[in-house]
């Protein structure tokens, strides 16, 4: 387990979402100790996600765990605006 993992607020845009609930978010600003610009969510890492409202292009805010690795793990998110 990485030592420097911290939970951080983020805002960003959903890049893609798959049928099994896996998805990727591009952050508006880098977060965490290694300045992650991307986060992922899935049914195994996030307990309650608003899958019905998540679409590519949707803007979201939430909490993510970030460490020295390439991509942050999204723990919570809320959709602030749907894609157009």
């Amino acid at each position: 387990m990485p030592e420097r993992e911290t939970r951080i607020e983020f805002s960003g845009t959903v890049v893609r979402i798959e049928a099994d609930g896996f998805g990727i978010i591009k952050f508006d600003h880098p977060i965490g100790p290694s300045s992650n610009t991307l986060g992922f969510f899935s049914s195994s890492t996030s307990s309650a996600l608003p899958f019905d409202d998540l679409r590519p292009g949707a803007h979201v805010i939430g909490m993510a765990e970030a460490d020295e690795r390439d991509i942050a793990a999204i723990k919570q998110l809320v959709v602030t605006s749907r894609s157009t």
Partner: protein
Amino acid sequence: MSQIIIDPIRKPRTTSGTVSITPIPNKARQFGFVPDLRHCKAGDLILSCSVKPGFLEKHIYRIQTRAGFSAEDSRWTHAAVFLYEDFIVEAVPLRGVISRTLYSDIPESVLRVRRSPGLHDNERYKIALCAQRMLGTRYNIKAALSLGWRAFLSGMWDRAWFPSINSVIICSKVFYDAHVEITRKLLSGCPISDLVMPAHLSATSDLQDINVPWVKLS
């Protein structure tokens, strides 16, 4: 960098020994040699292409070269994930998600085994299980189309080929996504929002080729 491949076109001259495997597909038994899959680990990527490519494989090859990949990377037209012993999991046109023995590819396919270095065995098993779970859910054309792929694909793929090519895309992307989910590491050169093709997984420098020697069947 030259690729390490398992190529049945050239009858293996050197082997790492003799083994007795039962049961084994007749074609592989007649060939007399199989790859020594004891060198493979759960979660390994298996790239493959036919010794004699059919029309669909030639089409995939053309798409990948048109996307800018070298002939060496574009030749790979199928991706699967190694599970254990000789079993792999993959999505196959019309048949859906299946697990089967990799020996059934011998001697009609060229194979290449790629692995993410530095992972623990439990992470490798998680990649394999995660990929199996994702494949089971994603091999659903309706679900794929509903996620907005239709618009994207219409510009890149011939729609008539979509059901067949869909399985190629899904297998490659599932390996990539499972790797991201378990390791939280991105594979260089692979798109995050785009379609991951076998050529991306062939070209990335974040996976290492595994040397899998031939063994003679007794």
